[in-house]
């Protein structure tokens, strides 16, 4: 390396020294073997010319110009040759040792033994170089490991098929937590350091003696870092960012039991428990690691007059710069429109009436009537208003609405004598479901919008979402354990595929999971509905799932 640098300096070439250094370092092996190959071609002819020199028994200088390493399959020939030499110079202990080397040369050209009448010392050097070249060109790779996870790989020195080698050592393998066990033919341990580790492999020849150099080469051990550790970075979103919102949010909306007259002539009083709502939204690790804001949002509402429940969840597009505002505008607008409509004098009655008719007789006419008022008077109206709200926000800032792209899930629910009515409007991915544990019942109120590739979905800001499919759905059910709205940050890890969203086993697993059956022991108490459950739900959202680090939002009526 130094020589080349000096040479370049002398010649006054303007090449960047660093570039040359980098290049040479990076390609050291290739350059060396390339040179060795070049030499090989040159050696063959002089080898025959060398015969008379051998006869003369002297002139080692001539032999020295023939690098032994150039012979590509040379081991056999050389070992035989050395044997021959050693007969001449038995006194040299090095050669005597070499003579014991196994002869594996059956196909070696006999005349090879004649060439290169070198001194014993030179023969030794040649043998060393031949082996070194062989070692360098052997393909030796090891499977990648993982930090802090047991690593075990078979490594049998015999399989290298290098009979001259008695022993192999790995230098500094312990430094990364691994060890070579020659008797077991294994390399094992628990890697302690991640990264690309170059490990020196040392080869001890059978005729090795103290003081003689070992042959060596580098091998690579790649140890992968622990993704959990890489993900653990949590940078708070700077509060001065445009449209700042907290990195997590939670809400618990307690609906107190209803007191009704009871008993003889209605003189007594009875408390009827009512369902409450809980929701939580957690910024994903993919955002936390970069200090980027949470794009998800949610909103809850209960109308104490009409007893309508409203839940909204929105997932701002990761690829849209201001989707955090888009999801917020969507949730707030949709919630307000639903709340206002349901509180509007007379409207709730009309809707209740249509629901009652449908519950009594699920005829096409009743279904159509109910759909019409539910869709155009509330759900689509709310979604449309949300879309307009986003467009206004975008226009006010001279931006395109798609920079505020968001999905939207709306659900309105109410208890009747005959059971529960649940209506929903669904744009994008995520999911809305009515789950009942006992007896087992499941209704999914729509279909996730997905594309051919991951991450493709539809957003509220796309004009076609109001005409492409039936997005308003409703069900009348006897009772339920939970009505759940989730962004895809939850459905992706918990349901994996769209088809699974319709499988009750998956919902059972989700419900058990929420009730504490998970590795973190994160439990949400749904029985004694209290403020605590919001904090518990937020903690639960922190669950670990490989490759799923999106924002997560869930809203539950229970």
């Amino acid at each position: 390396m130094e020589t080349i640098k000096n040479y370049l300096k002398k010649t006054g070439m303007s090449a960047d020294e660093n570039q040359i250094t980098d290049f040479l370092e990076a390609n050291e092996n290739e350059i060396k073997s390339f040179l060795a190959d070049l030499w090989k071609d040159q050696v063959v002819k002089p080898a025959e010319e060398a015969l008379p020199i051998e006869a003369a028994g002297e002139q080692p200088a001539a032999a020295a110009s023939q690098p032994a390493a150039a012979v590509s399959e040379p081991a056999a020939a050389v070992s035989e040759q050395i044997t021959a030499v050693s007969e001449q110079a038995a006194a040299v202990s090095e050669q005597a040792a070499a003579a014991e080397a196994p002869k594996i040369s059956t196909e070696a050209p006999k005349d090879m033994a004649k060439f290169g009448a070198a001194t014993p010392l030179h023969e030794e050097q040649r043998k060393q170089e031949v082996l070194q070249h062989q070692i360098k060109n052997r393909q030796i790779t090891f499977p990648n490991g993982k930090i802090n996870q047991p690593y075990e790989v078979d490594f049998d020195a015999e399989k290298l098929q290098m009979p001259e080698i008695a022993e192999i050592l790995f230098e500094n393998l312990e430094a990364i937590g691994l060890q070579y066990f020659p008797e077991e033919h294994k390399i094992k341990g628990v890697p302690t350091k991640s990264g690309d580790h170059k490990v020196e492999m040392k080869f001890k020849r059978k005729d090795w003696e103290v003081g003689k150099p070992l042959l060596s080469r580098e091998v690579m051990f790649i140890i992968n870092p622990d993704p959990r550790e890489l993900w653990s970075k949590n940078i708070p979103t700077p509060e001065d960012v445009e449209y700042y919102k907290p990195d997590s949010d939670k809400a618990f909306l307690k609906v107190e039991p209803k007191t009704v007259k009871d008993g003889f002539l209605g003189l007594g009083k009875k408390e009827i428990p009512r369902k409450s709502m809980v929701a939580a939204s957690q910024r994903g690790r993919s955002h936390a690691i970069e200090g980027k804001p949470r794009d998800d949002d949610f909103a809850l509402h209960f109308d104490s007059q009409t007893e309508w429940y409203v839940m909204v969840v929105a997932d701002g597009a990761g690829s849209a710069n201001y989707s955090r505002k888009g999801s917020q505008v969507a949730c707030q607008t949709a919630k307000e429109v639903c709340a206002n409509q349901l509180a509007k004098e007379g409207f709730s009655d009309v809707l209740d009436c249509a629901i009652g008719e449908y519950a009594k007789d699920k005829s096409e006419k009743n279904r159509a009537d109910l759909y019409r008022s539910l869709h155009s008077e509330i759900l689509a109206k709310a979604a449309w208003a949300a879309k307009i709200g986003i467009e206004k926000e975008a226009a006010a800032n001279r931006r395109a609405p798609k920079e505020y792209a968001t999905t939207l899930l709306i659900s309105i629910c109410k208890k009747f004598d005959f059971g529960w009515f649940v209506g929903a409007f669904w744009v994008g991915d995520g999911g809305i479901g009515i789950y009942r544990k006992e007896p087992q019942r499941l209704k999914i109120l729509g279909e996730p919008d997905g594309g051919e590739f991951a991450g493709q979905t539809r957003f509220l800001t796309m004009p076609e979402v109001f005409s492409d499919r039936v997005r308003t759905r409703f069900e009348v059910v006897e009772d339920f354990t939970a009505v759940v709205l989730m962004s895809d940050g939850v459905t992706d890890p918990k349901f994996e595929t769209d088809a699974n969203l319709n499988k009750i086993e998956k919902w059972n697993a989700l419900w058990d999971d929420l009730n504490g059956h998970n590795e973190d022991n994160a439990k949400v108490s749904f029985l004694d509905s209290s403020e605590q459950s919001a904090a518990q739900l937020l903690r639960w959202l922190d669950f670990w799932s490989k490759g799923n680090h999106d924002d997560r939002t869930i809203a539950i009526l229970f």
Partner: protein
Amino acid sequence: MRRLPVYILVQTSGAMRGEPIEAIKVGLETMVSSLRQDPFALESVHLSVITFNRYPEQILPLTELENMQIPAIAQPTAAGTHLGEALEFMCKKIDSEVVLSTPERKGDWMPLLFVMCDGRASDSQLFQQIIPVVKQKHFGSIVACLVGHNPRKENVEQFAGSVVNMDTADSSTIRSFFKWVSASVSVGNRSVGAADEIILPPPPPEVHTIV
């Protein structure tokens, strides 16, 4: 777990002999090693390397980053730059390797494609035929990186979303290119979705954007 398939096409005909091909190999290794430090990439990137001269060869089938080891790229000797054939070959690989979403199966992210070549296509007829096919493959992003002497941009402009040029295909430039590629891959991982094409980070100053 969603995969992000990344295809890297490397021209290995005579024009790339010497420093360019060595630098590409080192660049690839550096790229893989730095991507391993990015948790997005570590959990999702799957990389495939296809080399081509007169014939294409997939020297690394689509492999997850975790288990990946960059194979040796042989020093180019053969003449002929069959870019069209290479693209056709890659499209076939994509058809068999990239998973599309179905209700029962979770699909991959849109694949990314990086082509390193001198922009020549000795099989110009096939090349012209294959361009519309490449366009139908829904890449998240296609970047062509022109290397070698006297590179030509006319061909790659027809299918690549961005074309960059490296005046000097020395190791440090190529290294900075791959650094940029890894940054782009990381970004691709995050922003595929609403946008039609990923917005890549600006390339390093050594690498000039043409388109």
